[in-house]
C-alpha cells in the first residue's frame, strides 16, 4: 500500500510503517473537535508530513489519505466530513474528524466476566474460514474491554467459519448495500444460471449457510445455498433500496416453516454415527416397526433442501436408508451411484496406463 504512493507525483516512498501513519491519523482526527482540512492533516500528521511539500499538491499523498480513510471505515471507525459553508463540495476545504463517542464503545456497554468469556468463545469460532480478520480484531477489542476467564481454559473450540468462498464478498456487499451478480448451480441443471440480486443476509439454518436476497430480475425474495454459488461474486456499483432489508426476518421465518413441513423419514443403524448426528434434529425417534429391523431406529425430521440433505445422507453410507419421500430416496441413490461410478475399475482419472 505504501509502495503505491511512490508512483506518480513526486512524493517519495515513506519509511513510516502503515499502522504508525494510520494510528497517528486517528489521533489527529480525534483531537480536533472542529475537524482538520486535508492540507492540515497531510502537512502535519506523522507518516504524511515527511513526504509533504509546502505549496505543492501531491496526488499520491491524497490517494494515500483516501485509502487510509477506507481502511478506517472498514475497521468500524467512522470519519465525519464537514463541508465548508463558503464552498460546499470543495474537497480541499472539507474538514475531517472522528467523534470520540463513535470511536469508542459506549460507556454504559460493559460485560461481566462470564459474558466476556462467552464473547471470546464466539470470536474464536471464526478463526478459520471467513471473518478471520474481523474475529481477530473483535478478540483484541474484547481483551481491552476487561478481565475475563481465558477461553483457552474453557477447553471448548467451536468452528463457525463459513467455508464457502462466496461468503466474504457477499458479506461486504450486504454491509455496503450493493447489488451483486453470481452464477448459481442448481443440482439438476447442466449449467449454472446467472443471478442479479440485492443481498440481504447470510443465515445459517439446517446446518447450512444461505443467502437471503431479493432477486432483482424476478422481483421477488429468493434463498440461495452458498455452496451452490460458483465462480465468484461480482459486486456492482449500484446500491439497492435499504427498505428491502425489512423483509429478511419474514424470509427467515418462512425458511424455518419450510424446514418444519418438508419432512423425511429415515432408518438409521442403532449406535451408528448417523444415529448420533441425525437424532438431535429428529422430531420423532422410534424403534423400527418391522420385525427383524431391531438393529435400526426410525427418525422423522425436517429439512430445507432435499438435494443438499441427500448429499449429507449419502456420506453416512449404509448406516442410513431413506424411507420417504421418494425424491429424497432417488437423490440419495443418485449420489451413491455417482460415487460408485467415479470409483469403478479402472481409475478414470488415472494417468498411468498399463498397470491398472
Amino acid at each position, binding site marked *: 500500500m505504501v509502495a503505491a504512493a511512490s508512483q506518480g507525483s513526486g512524493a517519495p516512498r515513506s519509511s513510516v510503517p502503515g499502522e504508525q501513519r494510520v494510528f497517528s491519523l486517528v489521533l489527529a482526527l480525534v483531537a480536533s473537535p472542529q475537524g482538520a482540512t486535508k492540507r492540515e492533516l497531510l502537512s502535519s500528521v506523522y507518516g504524511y508530513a515527511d513526504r509533504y511539500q509546502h505549496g505543492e499538491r501531491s496526488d499520491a499523498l491524497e490517494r494515500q489519505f483516501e485509502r487510509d480513510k477506507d481502511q478506517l471505515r472498514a475497521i468500524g471507525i467512522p470519519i465525519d466530513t464537514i463541508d465548508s459553508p463558503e464552498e460546499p463540495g470543495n474537497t480541499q476545504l472539507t474538514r475531517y474528524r472522528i467523534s470520540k463517542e463513535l470511536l469508542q464503545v459506549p460507556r454504559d456497554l460493559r460485560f461481566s466476566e462470564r459474558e466476556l468469556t462467552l464473547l471470546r468463545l464466539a470470536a474464536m469460532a471464526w478463526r478459520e474460514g471467513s471473518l478471520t480478520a474481523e474475529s481477530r480484531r473483535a478478540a483484541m477489542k474484547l481483551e481491552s474491554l476487561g478481565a475475563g476467564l481465558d477461553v483457552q481454559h474453557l477447553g471448548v473450540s467451536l468452528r463457525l467459519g463459513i467455508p464457502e*468462498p462466496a461468503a466474504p464478498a457477499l458479506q461486504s456487499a450486504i454491509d455496503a448495500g450493493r447489488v451483486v451478480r453470481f452464477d448459481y448451480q442448481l443440482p439438476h441443471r447442466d449449467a449454472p444460471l446467472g443471478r442479479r440480486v440485492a443481498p440481504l443476509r447470510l443465515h445459517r439454518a439446517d446446518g447450512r449457510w444461505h443467502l437471503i436476497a431479493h432477486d432483482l430480475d424476478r422481483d421477488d425474495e429468493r434463498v440461495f445455498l452458498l455452496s451452490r454459488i460458483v465462480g465468484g461474486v461480482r459486486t456492482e456499483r449500484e446500491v439497492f433500496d435499504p427498505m428491502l432489508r425489512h423483509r429478511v426476518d419474514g424470509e427467515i421465518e418462512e425458511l424455518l416453516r419450510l424446514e418444519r413441513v418438508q419432512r423425511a423419514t429415515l432408518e438409521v443403524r442403532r449406535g451408528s454415527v448417523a444415529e448420533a448426528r441425525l437424532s438431535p434434529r429428529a422430531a420423532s425417534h422410534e424403534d423400527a416397526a418391522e420385525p427383524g429391523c431391531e438393529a435400526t431406529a426410525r427418525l422423522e425430521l425436517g429439512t430445507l433442501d432435499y438435494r443438499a440433505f441427500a448429499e449429507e445422507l449419502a456420506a453416512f453410507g449404509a448406516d442410513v436408508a431413506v424411507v420417504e419421500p421418494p425424491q429424497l430416496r432417488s437423490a440419495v441413490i443418485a449420489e451413491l451411484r455417482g460415487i460408485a461410478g467415479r470409483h469403478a475399475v479402472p481409475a478414470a482419472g488415472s494417468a498411468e496406463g498399463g498397470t491398472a
Partner: protein
Amino acid sequence: MRSQLQTPDRVVLLLALVPYLREHGPTPVNELAETFDVEPALLRKLVRFLGTAGVPGETQSYQHEDLFDIDWTALEDEDLVSLTHVVAVDDTPRFSAAERAALIAGLQMLTGMLPTEERERAERTAAKLAGAFGDTAPPSALSVTADPQDARVPLLVGAIGNGHRVAFAYRDARGSESARSVEPLQLRQSSGAWYLRAFCLERGEERTFRIDRMRDLRELDEAAARPASAAPATRFSAGAASGPAAQRGRIRVRLDAAPRLADFGLETGPVGRDGWADATVDLWYPGTAVALVQAAPGAVEIVSPESARAAVRAWAEQALGLYDDERD
C-alpha cells in the same frame, strides 16, 4: 501458526493496547503478546512506536505534552510495558458492523451447545451487544438458527466448565465397547463431528474420543486434576493415533470441497479448467479413503492405490444395497 497482522489489525491492536494498559498497569511484553496473540517482537515494535505517537499541536508539529509516553527504562531493562501518558484515546474501540455480526452469530451458535444457564447468558449477551449501538448501526449481515445439538455436547461443556471428570461407555472404531473415566481436556468440532480430547484414567494417557460413540455419558463429582485447554496443540486428524505407516494416496478434489477436507492434510496441485485438482494425501487407515469421500461425497475421487478405490466402491455399493428394490 499466527497469521500475519495487516495494517488495519495493527491499528486496532494499538487502539486496544491503550485501554488495556490503563486498566492493567505495567505488563510484561510476553504477557501482552500472549493475550493479544501476536509475536513479542511485533508487540515490542508497536509499543516503542506508541511511546512516541501523539497529536500535532497548534503549531502543526508534535510537542512533548501532546505525545504518549511510556516508561522506557522499564521496557529496555525489564521488558515491561508501562504507559505513563495518554492522549486523545482512552477506551476500547467500538466493534465494526462485521465484527459485531460475527460475535452475535457466534453467540447464537453457542446457544445450542451450552448448559441451560450459560445458554440464557449467551442469549442475553447477544441482545446486549445488538442493542448497544441503537438505530445508527446497520442491520447485521449474518444470523444463525442454532443447530439442535447432541445432548452430550452441553453435558461435556458443563463438565469442563465445572472442572469435573466424566464417565461413559465407549465403542471404538473396531466396534468393541469399554467403560472409561476421563479428564476432559478439549472439546472440538471437525467436519460436523464432535471430538473430546481427554486424559483416559484407564489407559493412563491422552486419547481422542468421538462424542457420537459415547454411551451413558455422565459428569462425575471428582475434580479433574488436568486443566482443560482449547489450544490447538494436538491435531485431531485421522492420522493422530498411532498405527501402521501411512500409504500415500492420489486423489482428485473439486476446488470448492477443499475447506471440508482441511483436516486430512492434502497436498493439492494446480486447479484445472474443470475446477478439479490433483492432490496427494496420507491414507493412515483402510477407512481413510472412505472418510475423505464422506467429508465431500460428490467432490472427491480416490485415484490410487486401487485398494483404497475398491474400499470406496464397496462402501457405496453396500449403501446402494439398501435400495435394491429400486434397481433396474
